């Protein structure tokens, strides 16, 4: 039992500046449970050999996963990989066909009202076309819980205070999504499920939403997030799991996923009027040597690691770009590459 407001130990140092050096090992070991391990009684979510079939097709095919209390865990995967199915089994919406599952210590297939009172669920299809005002919807939802948050505080938190009197059906797509989140957290959940919460947001709304998620994390809420957006997983999650064909391809901290932290760096520069690239495990030494060949600045120098997107696409078996990173890093523009090279050099 984690006291509210207290954070479970974070697996990595979090902050705006994440230090990644070319020689460091992944900061935290993958520490995935293995098939046959006992369920973790202290975890917020623990599954062993979870299977869910639709007809002959196994949408989830033997999932072993532990999510710690206080953690933000992002589940990534292409459409049809089993993300929503997995989450809906954990939420108690779907019955599993095999394996063991505990969510807050309870089997979701037998979760009663007391169990549900500890969950917050933000579904993909949100609050319907309601005639009630935003505040009325929140007040009604709050009344189902014994210790709800104050609806007005929740409105403030999601930035809907100005819309408190507006009817649900008149909200824009982004406002509706924030209302969904407000409805999900008004019951003061210990565990919050967020299924693709920022789909349809503009970049500014997404940033605001991320800030909201971080403030909820600071209140001690455990979160399981599914998303299509890799930058979102990278910005928010303590750990990322990649789901492909119903199985976890990998679980890691975002900076170490797919061996990103130790993958060869790609150094690019311009020499004799041509673009040159080199792959190296020791970019610092390489750049030092390179610097010796030029009197001043090395022209158009970039140092890049595979992006989360690169390793993700490789992992789910789509257009693996591998060495192609070199070319694409240059093409993608100096700004992004420069950002990466700063991280490497610092």
């Amino acid at each position, binding site marked *: *039992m984690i006291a509210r407001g207290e954070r479970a130990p974070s697996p990595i140092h979090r902050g705006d500046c994440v230090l990644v050096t070319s020689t460091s090992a992944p900061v935290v070991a993958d520490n995935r449970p293995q098939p046959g391990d006992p369920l973790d009684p202290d975890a917020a979510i623990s599954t062993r050999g979870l299977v869910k079939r639709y007809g002959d097709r196994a949408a989830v095919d033997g999932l072993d996963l532990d999510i710690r209390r206080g953690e933000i865990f992002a589940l990534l995967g292409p459409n049809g990989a089993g993300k929503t199915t997995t989450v809906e089994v954990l939420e108690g*919406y779907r019955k599993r066909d095999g394996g063991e599952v505990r969510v807050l210590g309870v089997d979701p297939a037998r979760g009663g009202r007391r169990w549900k009172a500890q969950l917050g669920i933000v579904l993909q299809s949100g609050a319907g076309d309601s005639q009630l005002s935003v505040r009325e919807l929140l007040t009604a939802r709050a009344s189902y819980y*014994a210790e709800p948050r104050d609806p007005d505080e929740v409105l403030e938190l999601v930035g809907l205070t100005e819309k408190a009197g507006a009817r649900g059906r008149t909200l824009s797509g982004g406002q509706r999504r924030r209302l969904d989140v407000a409805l999900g957290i008004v019951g003061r959940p210990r565990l919050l499920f967020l299924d693709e919460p920022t789909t349809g947001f503009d970049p500014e709304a997404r940033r605001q939403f991320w800030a909201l998620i971080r403030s909820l994390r600071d209140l001690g809420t455990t979160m399981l997030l599914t998303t299509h957006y890799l930058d979102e997983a990278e910005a928010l999650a303590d750990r990322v799991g990649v789901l492909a064909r119903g199985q976890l391809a990998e679980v890691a901290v975002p900076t170490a996923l797919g061996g990103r932290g130790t993958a060869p760096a790609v150094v690019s520069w311009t020499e004799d009027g041509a673009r040159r690239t080199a792959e190296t495990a020791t970019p610092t030494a390489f750049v030092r040597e390179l610097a010796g060949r030029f009197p001043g600045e090395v022209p158009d120098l970039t140092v890049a690691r595979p992006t989360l997107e690169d390793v993700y696409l490789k992992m789910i078996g789509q257009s693996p770009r591998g060495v192609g990173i070199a070319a694409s890093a240059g093409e993608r523009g100096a700004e992004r590459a420069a950002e990466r090279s700063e991280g490497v050099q610092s």
Partner: protein
Amino acid sequence: MTTAAPERTALPPLGRVYLTRAGVELKEFFRQRESVVFTLVFPVILLLGLGAVLDYDLGAGVDFPQYFMAGVITAGIVGASLQNMAIHIAGERSDGTLKSLRGTPMPASAYFVGKVVQVLAVAVATIVLLLLVGVLVHGIGLPSGTDWMTFAWVSVLGAAACTLLGIVVSTLARNARSASATVTPIALVLQFVSGVFIPFDQVPGWLQDVAAVFPVKWLAQGLRSVFLPDALAAREPAGSWELGTVALVLGVWCVAGLVLCALTFRWQDREG
């Protein structure tokens, strides 16, 4: 936030959740112009329109508006229960409202209590409106004495059976649109063959037998016993109002509806 979280396993008292749901359902209905017009105002327009145009003499000094009171109140109750439930619950299932509620500690009973309160409120409002228009515009005679008791139990039992039937239809429908497209003609046909718009003895015999399977016919017949003089009971198929059979058939439909609801109700659209 420095205090440790207590075990948050307590739940609010049921009565308070029921009250919340009743409030939610009343606001959802009465704030939606389409449902208010369709369910509340449409029967009034029927009464005004048909009452002014049709002019049969049914004998025993009964004119069409007096006969039609029982029919149009039947239509009002069917609209408030069967059609209202089938269309709006299907809508709430399609747009994710039901699924979202299912993920909260709200007990399922609270959802249905809210719906029952909504049906009762809409049905009572419809009946009051129709009686007012009937008396003020068509000068119909109000029930007297024990007829009020009959009026009450027939209406409640009929509304209950139709509400449960509406919930079942909402589940059988694929979505809100198909629920509306299914239940509206069903309700109209049942009303026609049950003597809502035309005297029941003008309905062909085999159609009367079909109608007798469904609750609408018995609701209409029970209400005719309230608004028509006993002399007209002779024009009913059995030559009497058959109030015992009315209670029996409506009661059986309530039980069957409840069982079907329990067996078929879903909180989300079908999987896959």
